[in-house]
């Protein structure tokens, strides 16, 4: 497909010729992806992150699955050894960024005012306004939503989907887009497993079908169980990104 808008072909004498107008309607063939401008911006971000050697993780889940709580536990674990930063996306309030900043970690809140996802332009703006130091790991906590954020590339290294055990064990097949796109799925709130009906093997089976080779991790931010494995995965991904750079 032609992606360059300057390659438009104009046909001024098609069936829509309008005698009231000397030239009639112009049929401008465009043929470009609607989200092309987002993809272009995301690619710029990806190149910048590659140059800086920053690992970027796009966290996606439904509201209330524990993204911010897991991030609190994650940055608390990482901040002694790595420079970490967080971009928070929410429809309203600075609450999440405040929670991260309270841990002494730089955070910038994007308030979308109704939009259901973050796009690459907002991430670029957040990076400029957030005055982040040089980062080893940047977390982008997307707006809580299992559908829309999937369509918007943010220049991240990988998407991580969160699924809390209280949400039910049928979510991957019900929201296949995100669980196909996420390289890593984190099952959260695992300390609540004894109190809910959650078939872990069923979830793993669904994810294996949707994303063969995708990683599934278990974590409880409350008890800290599994947070070390998640941080280990991040450190390994960062190391391999840095190794590719040199």
């Amino acid at each position: 497909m032609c992606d360059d808008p300057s390659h438009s072909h104009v046909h001024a004498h098609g069936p829509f010729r309008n005698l009231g107008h000397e030239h009639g309607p112009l049929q401008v063939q465009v043929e470009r992806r609607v989200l092309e401008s987002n993809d272009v911006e995301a690619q710029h971000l990806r190149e910048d992150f590659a140059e800086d050697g920053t690992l970027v993780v796009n966290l996606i889940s439904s509201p209330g699955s524990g993204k911010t709580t897991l991030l609190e536990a994650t940055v608390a674990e990482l901040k002694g050894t790595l420079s970490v930063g967080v971009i928070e996306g929410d429809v309203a309030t600075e609450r999440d960024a405040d929670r991260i900043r309270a841990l002494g970690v730089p955070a910038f809140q994007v308030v979308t005012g109704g939009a259901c996802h973050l796009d690459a332009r907002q991430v670029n703006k957040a990076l400029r306004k957030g005055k982040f130091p040089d980062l080893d790991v940047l977390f982008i906590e997307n707006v809580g939503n299992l559908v829309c954020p999937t369509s918007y590339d943010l220049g991240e290294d990988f998407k991580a989907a969160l699924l809390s055990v209280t949400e039910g064990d049928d979510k991957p097949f019900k929201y296949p887009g995100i669980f196909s796109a996420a390289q890593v799925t984190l099952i959260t709130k695992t300390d609540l497993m004894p109190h809910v009906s959650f078939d872990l093997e069923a979830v793993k089976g669904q994810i294996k079908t949707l994303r063969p080779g995708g990683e599934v991790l278990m974590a409880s931010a409350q008890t800290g169980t599994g947070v070390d494995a998640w941080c280990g995965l991040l450190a390994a991904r960062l190391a391999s990104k840095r190794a590719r750079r040199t």
Partner: protein
Amino acid sequence: MHETGVAMEIYRASLQAAEAHGPGRLERVRVAVGELSAVDPELLAYAWEAVVAGTPDEGCPLEVEWHRARQSCAACGQDKERAEGSWLPVCPDCGQFLTVEGGRELDLLQVSYLPDEPGGAHV
């Protein structure tokens, strides 16, 4: 659910495509939407109406070309029925990976543009 943002992007791209041809207004915009693109055509049409309302292009129709996804199995060598909303990548019969073609389209195809009459401003 993000159809408003998509509609705004379509409008922005349409104006960009048209601006090279001088002042005028959009008469019709045609897009391709695939069934795996997570965009609902009806919601997109509503969102489009709202996006162009109050602009010089108010009332310009958005035509949606709907694209189905096709999946076939290399092992069984035939097209596989795909249940609405199912994105399963493996063959229900033999368990091999399916080849999925199309269905992810979200493209601006054509902009029909009505230029202002030449010299009209001087009449």
